[in-house]
């Protein structure tokens, strides 16, 4: 009855099918096959990635929960923990940008509050094709509106994020969403059923035919027929999720439940197998009791629906009524659909008949793991020979073009649509660098950032992975915070292609090496494979989410210049490396060469210098050069300062002017200090062997760069700022163009 056609529709190989038959002890029926298909999909099983992910460092004295749960947990002292995680929603966002992104936010929020934490911050990492193309504009407009609609309504601030633009993302936008929650250490909840006899409750939205086979869809390439193959798109209901959030936190606060799991990918299937599997139990449910939005749903539709805003709860039988009353207060039903059993099987009844009877451990733990063939990427090309590129004739014009490039330009058009202040913890507004949140009732602060340059990882996967970690940590160091934990979202093409698997392996090893150097644990993450459309893979795009702690909020530093007449000091050094830079891409039209090199020890020394200088109160502003190099970095410091304080920087030779201005050499931080503190900062650098020099001073109304006294750039700060501010809004000026009637 199960023929190859059915198998391929379920995205299972004949070998996997044979294993299923052995594990179940007979031929599975279609519902059971659907269960295996979803849970053994790449998206849920990590069957291609697990052997590599094992290399990541996950331990540490503050780690309360590493990978393996809905989110990671780090102890931040005072009886409190932070719970955080990043997730991708790339495929759904391509199909329907608004709902895809919105439900991505809904999903990551549930991952956090299902553990007992109140979500206090969201961040988003986005990749789109160039905005010259109206299709890309419309995708971006929809994605941003979707994130905004969900996050704003539920009342969790979107405090930061990042966005890059590149042709490879035209047919495959990336939408990664990060969420962080705060919990009391003694009120953490896990996806467990505990003892046999416990009740199993279904809470939240009714089940409809939404996103059926979403998990296996995220585990397939998109082809031309994708448009027609669209499953039912899930629609997010942030209002319902807000009720669910409050009700769940209430039953947890009162310790009325023993375990809980959200229903995201693979829906009821995932929760009814993972929860008992983790407790070594089974579950028996009656599918007829599952609240349904549509008439005539079949057992496999009920089991595989990805309707949003639902949770599965296990509680002691004598608590059922109290739990139901707590949900009723929030106008939600909590329906007892079954109970925990001792036999380790998932058994589902439907109209009195048993329609599913499978061992949960087979579904959850016995998916075959693959060591997919990988092809080491070609050796990174030698450092680009800078001499091949003609020197620009017009330096002012070159800086202007870079400031107007979508990847560099101001992202206010995006973050103004996000409520980034609700919950009244946002101490530094979005715009530059890391997000900074105060913790009410404490002098400590939380700092967080997302980072990942896909072009670097494309040109040299290992270095790209390392740089993503280094840069994220550097962003924290600029504020004055030390990293405490890492989550990551690895966006790649088809893992069945050896070259993609090779990129994956290298990136993971790079991340791993950098995290070991910085001694930070990876507490979780997400892998999104099959980001290919019509056979073309995206650049390998690791996105690192790093969370840091500030001991004293009052000492936090921002990137904007503070006053005229202060010294501008460059920690670190600029090297002759133009490969992979935004400058090469925008001005010379090339995406090539080796990305900037990274010496992890040097990186550490530079960050330590900055951290110590901030701790001693010697630093007035700090910002690190990234896309666009030193020139763009200094310009941003000017733009973020009050009233547009300009600067004059005099560069010393040794390299071509374009290298000095626009190279993206790592391990550099631009700080400003009062005149009387210069020597102290330089001494701190010297102690750690970090090159450091005063390269200019703040003041005036222009952005001025000279090379050994000879003017290169002299641009009115106000004019430059206008270019940088208006670049993205210009694309969306024709109001409503991409509204799609919404």
């Amino acid at each position, binding site marked *: 009855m199960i023929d190859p056609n059915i198998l391929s529709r379920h995205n299972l190989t004949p070998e996997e099918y044979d294993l299923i038959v052995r594990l179940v002890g007979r031929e599975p029926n279609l519902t059971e096959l659907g269960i295996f298909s979803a849970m053994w999909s790449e998206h849920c099983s990590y069957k291609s990635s697990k052997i590599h992910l094992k290399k990541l460092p996950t331990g540490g004295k503050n780690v309360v929960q590493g990978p393996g749960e809905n989110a990671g947990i780090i102890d931040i002292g005072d009886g409190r923990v932070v719970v955080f995680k990043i997730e991708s929603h790339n495929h759904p966002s391509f199909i329907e940008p608004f709902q895809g992104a919105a439900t991505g936010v809904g999903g990551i929020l549930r991952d956090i509050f299902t553990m007992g934490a109140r979500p206090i911050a969201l961040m988003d990492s986005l990749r789109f094709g160039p905005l010259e193309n109206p299709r890309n504009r419309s995708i971006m407009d929809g994605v941003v509106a979707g994130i905004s609609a969900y996050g*704003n309504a539920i009342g969790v601030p979107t405090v930061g994020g990042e966005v890059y633009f590149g042709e490879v993302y035209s047919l495959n936008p990336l939408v990664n969403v990060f969420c962080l929650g705060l919990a009391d250490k003694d009120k953490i909840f896990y996806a467990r059923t505990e003892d046999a006899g416990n009740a199993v409750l279904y809470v939240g939205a009714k089940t409809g035919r939404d996103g059926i086979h979403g998990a296996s869809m995220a585990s397939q390439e998109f082809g031309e027929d994708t448009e027609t193959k669209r499953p039912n798109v899930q629609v997010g*209901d942030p209002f319902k999720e807000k009720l669910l959030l409050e009700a769940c936190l209430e039953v947890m606060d009162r310790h009325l439940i023993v375990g809980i799991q959200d229903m995201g990918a693979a829906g009821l299937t995932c929760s009814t197998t993972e929860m008992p599997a983790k407790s070594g139990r089974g579950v028996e449910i009656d599918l007829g009791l599952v609240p349904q939005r549509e008439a005539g749903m079949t057992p496999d539709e009920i089991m595989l629906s990805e309707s949003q805003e639902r949770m599965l709860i296990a509680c002691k039988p004598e608590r059922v009524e109290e739990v139901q009353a707590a949900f009723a207060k929030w106008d939600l039903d909590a329906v007892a659909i079954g109970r925990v059993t001792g036999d380790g099987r998932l058994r589902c009844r439907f109209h009195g008949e048993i329609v599913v009877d499978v061992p949960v451990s087979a579904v959850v733990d016995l998916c075959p793991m693959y060591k997919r063939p990988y092809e080491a990427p070609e050796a990174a090309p030698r450092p680009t020979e800078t001499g091949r590129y003609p020197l620009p004739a017009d330096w002012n014009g070159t800086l202007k073009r870079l400031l107007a490039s979508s990847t560099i330009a101001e992202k206010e058009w995006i973050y103004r*649509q996000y409520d980034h202040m609700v919950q009244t913890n946002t101490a530094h507004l979005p715009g530059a660098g890391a997000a900074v949140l105060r913790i009410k009732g404490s002098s400590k602060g939380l700092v967080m950032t997302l980072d990942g340059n896909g072009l670097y990882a494309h040109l040299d996967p290992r270095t790209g992975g390392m740089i993503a970690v280094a840069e994220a940590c550097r962003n924290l160091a600029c504020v004055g915070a030390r990293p405490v934990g890492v989550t990551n979202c690895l966006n790649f093409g088809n893992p069945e292609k050896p070259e993609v698997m090779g990129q994956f392996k290298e990136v993971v090893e790079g991340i791993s090496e950098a995290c070991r150097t910085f001694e930070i644990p990876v507490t979780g993450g997400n892998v999104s494979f099959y980001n290919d459309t019509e056979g073309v893979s995206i650049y390998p795009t690791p996105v690192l989410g790093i969370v840091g702690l500030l001991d004293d909020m009052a000492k936090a530093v921002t990137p904007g210049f503070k006053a005229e007449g202060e010294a501008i000091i460059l920690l670190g050094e600029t090297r002759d490396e133009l490969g992979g830079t935004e400058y090469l891409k925008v001005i010379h039209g090339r995406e090539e060469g080796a990305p900037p090199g990274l010496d992890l020890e040097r990186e550490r020394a530079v960050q330590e210098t900055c951290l110590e200088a901030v701790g001693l109160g010697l630093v007035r502003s700090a910002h690190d050069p990234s896309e666009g190099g030193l020139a763009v970095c200094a310009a941003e410091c000017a733009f973020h300062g009050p009233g547009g304080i300009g600067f004059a920087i005099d560069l010393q030779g040794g390299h071509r002017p374009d290298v000095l201005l626009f190279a993206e050499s790592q391990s550099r931080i631009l700080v400003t200090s009062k005149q009387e503190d210069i020597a102290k900062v330089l001494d701190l650098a010297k102690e750690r062997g970090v090159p450091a020099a005063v390269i200019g001073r703040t003041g005036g109304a222009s952005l001025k760069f000279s090379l050994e006294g000879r003017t290169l750039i002299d641009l009115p700060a106000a004019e430059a700022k206008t270019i940088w501010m208006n670049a993205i809004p210009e694309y969306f000026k024709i109001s409503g163009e991409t509204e799609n009637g919404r």
Partner: protein
Amino acid sequence: MKFGVVVFPGSNCDFDTVHALREVIGRPTEILWHKDHDLRGADCVVLPGGFSYGDYLRSGAIARFSPLMQEVREFAEKGGLVLGICNGFQVLLELGLLPGAMLRNKGLKFLCRFVTVRVENAGTRFTNAGRKGQVLRMPIAHFDGNYYADPAVLEDIERNGRIVFRYCDPDGRLTDEANVNGSLHAIAGLTNARGNVMGMMPHPERASEAILGSTDGRIVFESLLRAIAS
């Protein structure tokens, strides 16, 4: 003197407001559940920001039917002090305690940012701690803050000093650009005829602590303290 903050399903600035009133202003503050019928002795009822009932249908439209709103209406009719912030303002409009309605922002996007507003009337119970013409810096965060009322209503509220705040530039000038959501007469806050009910789109609770970038919002809360004391 006691505040009461109403919690509707979907309210999300309720705890921010409670925090500002209890921890910053230092006054006892009751949390009022929308299904109750009891204002718990509050001297001033605050309807907080958020997305009550998801803001489905229209912002604030469904919240107005909450059981507690009956009490709030009676309280207001007897002269009790009622402050609506953002979504709370929208609820007051839907409830008819304040005139007019909100349309979508002129840019058709949700807008979250600091704005400056000018105190138009420092004689109200919500602004007596400020000065006429004073420019206050507070955040806004809304989709539907584009105030609309019939010409007759506008004339009435103008004539009777019921406009409390107008969007202005940092120097206090009224410009098209400063009127970020396109409100008629740049209205950011107004009172009822009797002066005991005010709605405002900016969030004073988000501008009550230096660490959040402004303390100008405290003027609203401190004015209420004075009003109740006298």
